[in-house]
């Protein structure tokens, strides 16, 4: 057996099934008598619905039902806010089907159910909706003027405001040698998991039970909301996730469709399937980013940072969805990064526009704030003639200062505390590995006719926490096989492997004896979900605690069986060993077999199972450095990323292959978002990027091999395993590093994204003219 399963580069158990096409995704679910739903979506960004006539559609052959909000009646089908409930936001919630008004292109208006998806889409064509088109508002600055109101009855587009105030920023600015003010913008883009959303809902009229396939990310929470909506007992609603092709924050949130498909099944008494197509995904699933920031920095001449002041504007779209004010608020939450900045003030504005609602996307707000801050630091270094690396080193929080309490940077009762880290050490290792000093020599115009640049960013990212617990149940069965039942969902990360590694180490059984089950609300009564890089932190520690409890129970049972003191027993590689004796080891399977045979009323039922929850409000923080080398063709504006390095400290690595995969995948997703991807709205508030022809994802030819160095120098003191989440470190620093690299290459100051060739040409033209 391996010395320790934790830390071993074990290939994912899931891989074979995914790679060979043996996975079962929601679209693979096919039930008898199943019918198919399609959703009529608003073609207008802002309009009043004068009438909806479904008669023509209902009369089409093969059409089972067409329904609108009126049919949902008194049931509450409002998408709730679950996090970052800033006062006021709850007046901007989305009904699952439009009520009198449509407020973005793609808003669900009606549902058609038919014998096939083809017929359902034909039915959509035959629904007659009469709209009175209204003026739309698409820009946050314009929206703040309140000339066009997205929700007229609320009287304003400013849905909510949150203040962060630490120290005395105004005083620091007044006394500072140096200040600078800049406006930065991050554009709108989204997660695009390979598998789009989807649901199969099956209401069994005979049993009064609802089964929903395709649930993921937050199955328990979604079940709670949907059971309440349909007025069904929660325990009679079973949510199953199946295999999932990625989430990235987008997939698994509660959306209008999560109400509509179960509702259709209850209404019809038939299994109903809806699979989101890519056009719908780009129109209807959460958009993300698009936060604008007016940032001010104050420092001493020598580069000592004194204060930050920020006005943050989040473009929430037309409705506040499940995440509430999370995206703009998270921008403020870690704006100070890994640096000692004693005075910090931020005002976060949540602003409504006629766009699709905003939600999370891998490191929401943190990608944005890292971009603003790291760009600003490079500008400041230039202004003060300081070395940008030295400037950062000077201000990094030191190990002696940790745990370092930044203060209350979130709308939460918990302060933000940097829990562990040696920030200077990670920076030093990043610079060495990247050969930073040699790379700097390459900057400027090279023989290839392109301008080369190197850029650096430093990030911290909160992982785990947010919602306080996850649980695991563990059972020993025939042959000593161990079943681990998780409360947490999986979106493709590899819980089946990582949790087995953690279990094997704590329980002292071979990993091969362990099977991990997840993705069904029946496995566990409570659970939160897979987000904020919390899987390993929360569920991993739950598995660890459960395994320790189960081990004690096993040893107690063995002690009874062997008639020895449990204190003299230990588990080693799946065998019960009597320490200090020559007695033969008792394989766990034999203990189980014996216990099965020897059940008597006197002995009681042998219990070889345990359930435990890991419960903690403490948030761990990963940290690290991104370094990029880019080349830009000044005549075409074409940007090539030549070399990219991510260094991150995740506290303790459970599986280096999986962390490597997360890091590389996140960096690729980050580079794609910064260079290629953009949700573009055009005239009349139409979304122009509704296919992959126009919404450009990075392909294998668009990114260089990503180098990564994963450190374990600073285990988190907050949890037994010492782990931190590894899902987002690879993306957080991408905008900052690439923005700095392009700025350094061209001698310009990048303040907005994406780094498209057209935009780069415009910056160069402006420089030539100016």
């Amino acid at each position, binding site marked *: 057996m391996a010395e320790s399963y934790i830390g071993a580069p074990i290939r994912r158990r899931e891989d074979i099934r995914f790679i060979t096409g043996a996975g079962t995704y929601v679209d693979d679910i096919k039930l008898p008598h199943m019918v198919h739903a399609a959703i009529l979506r608003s073609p207008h960004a802002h309009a009043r619905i004068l009438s909806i006539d479904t008669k023509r559609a209902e009369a089409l052959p093969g059409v089972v039902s067409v329904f609108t909000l009126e049919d949902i009646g008194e049931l509450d089908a409002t998408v709730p806010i679950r996090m970052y409930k800033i006062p006021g936001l709850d007046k901007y919630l989305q009904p699952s089907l439009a009520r009198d008004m449509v407020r973005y292109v793609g808003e669900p208006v009606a549902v058609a159910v038919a014998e096939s998806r083809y017929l359902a*889409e034909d039915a959509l064509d035959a629904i007659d909706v009469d709209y009175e088109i209204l003026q739309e508002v698409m820009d946050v600055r314009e929206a703040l003027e309140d000339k066009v109101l997205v929700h007229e009855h609320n009287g304003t587009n400013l849905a909510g405001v949150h203040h962060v105030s630490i120290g005395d920023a105004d005083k620091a600015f007044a006394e500072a040698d140096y200040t600078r003010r800049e406006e930065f913008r991050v554009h709108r883009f989204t997660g695009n998991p390979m598998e789009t959303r989807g649901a199969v809902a099956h209401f069994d009229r005979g049993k009064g039970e609802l089964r929903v396939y395709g649930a993921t990310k937050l199955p328990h929470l979604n079940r709670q909301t949907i059971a309440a909506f349909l007025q069904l007992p929660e325990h009679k609603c079973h949510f199953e996730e199946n295999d999932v092709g990625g989430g990235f924050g987008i997939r698994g949130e509660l959306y209008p469709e999560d109400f509509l498909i179960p509702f259709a099944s209850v209404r019809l008494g038939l299994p109903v399937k809806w699979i989101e197509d*890519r056009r719908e995904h780009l129109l209807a699933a959460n958009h993300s980013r698009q936060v604008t920031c007016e940032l001010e920095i104050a420092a001493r001449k020598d580069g000592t940072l004194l204060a930050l002041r920020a006005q943050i504007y989040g473009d929430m779209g037309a409705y506040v969805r499940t995440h509430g004010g999370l995206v703009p608020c998270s921008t403020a939450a870690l704006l100070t990064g890994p640096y000692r900045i004693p005075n910090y003030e931020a005002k976060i504005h949540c602003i409504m526009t006629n766009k699709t609602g905003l939600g999370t996307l891998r490191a929401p707000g943190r990608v944005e704030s890292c971009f603003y801050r790291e760009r600003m630091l490079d500008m400041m270094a230039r202004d003060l003639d300081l070395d940008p690396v030295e400037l950062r080193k000077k201000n990094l929080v030191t190990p002696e200062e940790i745990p370092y309490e930044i203060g209350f940077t979130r709308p939460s009762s918990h302060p933000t505390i940097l829990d562990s880290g040696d920030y200077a050490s990670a920076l030093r290792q990043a610079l060495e590995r990247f050969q930073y000093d040699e790379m700097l020599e390459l900057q400027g115009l090279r023989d290839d006719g392109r301008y080369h640049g190197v850029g650096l960013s430093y990030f911290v990212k909160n992982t785990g926490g947010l919602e306080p617990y996850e649980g695991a149940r563990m059972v020993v069965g025939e042959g000593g096989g161990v079943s681990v039942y998780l409360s947490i969902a999986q979106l493709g990360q590899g819980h089946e492997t990582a949790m087995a590694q953690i279990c094997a180490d704590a329980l002292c059984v071979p990993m091969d004896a362990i099977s991990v089950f997840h993705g069904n609300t029946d496995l566990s009564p409570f659970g939160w979900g897979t987000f904020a890089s919390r899987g390993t932190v929360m569920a991993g520690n739950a598995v660890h605690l459960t395994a320790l409890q189960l081990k004690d129970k096993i040893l107690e049972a063995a002690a009874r069986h062997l008639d020895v003191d449990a204190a003299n027993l230990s588990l080693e590689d799946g065998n019960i060993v009597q320490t200090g004796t020559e007695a033969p080891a008792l394989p766990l399977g034999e203990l189980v077999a014996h216990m099965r045979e020897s059940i008597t009323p006197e002995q009681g039922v042998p219990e070889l199972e345990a359930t435990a929850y890991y419960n903690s409000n403490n948030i761990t923080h990963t940290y690290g450095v991104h370094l990029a080398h880019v080349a830009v063709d000044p005549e*075409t504006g074409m940007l090539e990323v030549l070399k990219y390095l991510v260094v991150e400290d995740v506290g303790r690595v459970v599986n280096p292959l999986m962390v490597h995969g997360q890091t590389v995948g996140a960096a690729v997703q980050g580079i794609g978002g910064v260079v*290629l991807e953009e949700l573009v709205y055009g005239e009349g508030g139409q979304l122009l990027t509704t296919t992959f022809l*126009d919404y450009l994802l*990075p392909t294998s030819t668009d990114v260089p091999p990503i180098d990564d160095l994963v450190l374990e120098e600073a285990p988190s003191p907050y949890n037994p395993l010492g782990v931190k989440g590894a899902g987002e470190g690879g993306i957080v620093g991408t905008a900052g590093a690439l923005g700095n690299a392009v700025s350094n290459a061209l001698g310009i100051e990048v303040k907005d994204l994406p780094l*498209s060739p057209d935009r780069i040409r*415009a910056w160069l033209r402006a420089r030539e003219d100016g």
Partner: protein
Amino acid sequence: MKPAPFTYYCPDTLDEAVRLLHEHGDDGKILAGGQSLMPLMSLRLARPAVIVDMNRVPGLDRIAVNGDGGLSIGAMTRQRAIERDAALAERNPLLAAAVPLIGHFQIRNRGTVGGSLVHADPASELPAVSVTLGADFVLASAAGERVVSAEDFYLGYMATACEANEVLTEVRVPAWKAGRLWAIDEVARRKGDFAMAGVALWVDMDGGACADARITLFGVGGKPVRVEKAEQHLKGAALDDATLKEVERIVFEELEPDSDIHASALYRKEVGGVLTRRALGAAAARGTEAA
């Protein structure tokens, strides 16, 4: 993303195909490789009532060398077949170099020469290349055949001289002149994307001076854009830096592109000029290598 209802025909002969087109007129649409039509139908942006699938019509996928050394390419020839035809690269290096720029290999496996030419996306390579090569298109209908030059074929934004009752059957490419210099270049957001700007050109030299040239840009207008002013400027000139710079300026002046989400009109003008200058430089370098 499911197409609206349509009637599907899969004729076995060309006669049957043109009869169906004649019968259904504007309601009919030809299915060749389906690389553009099928996505458009799935999005319900195209809703043809009748599909005439040409994939079972024999004889439309041949590449033949004519007596004069020119090429005759069947409209149903897969783009990949051209890409893999080493002999064709000898006979027409510009055409051979253009094909790998089309989409990705999966698309070229399925996509046809005729489909791309008739679909007439202004940012695609083959229409521009056919204009630069001076190709002729053979159009068949129930009334017989007619031949239209590539230049006359493209009328405007995704509009061609091909009538609803006609089908493109063959592309005739004039013989490649010995010693001809050429280049094709494009700028796209990602490899395989439609070009934001591109150029396909050839130059025939007489000693140190240009005797004749053809320059066609793509992605910079509603149809392939031939820049005759630039061609005129080249005639009699050496392919030196000054000439190339001037051609860049002329192309910049001549182009009247539109803006879209990927690039502004100004960007396309600039990059159209830059690419033409670079392509001429690459063509000239080919001449130097050959000498």
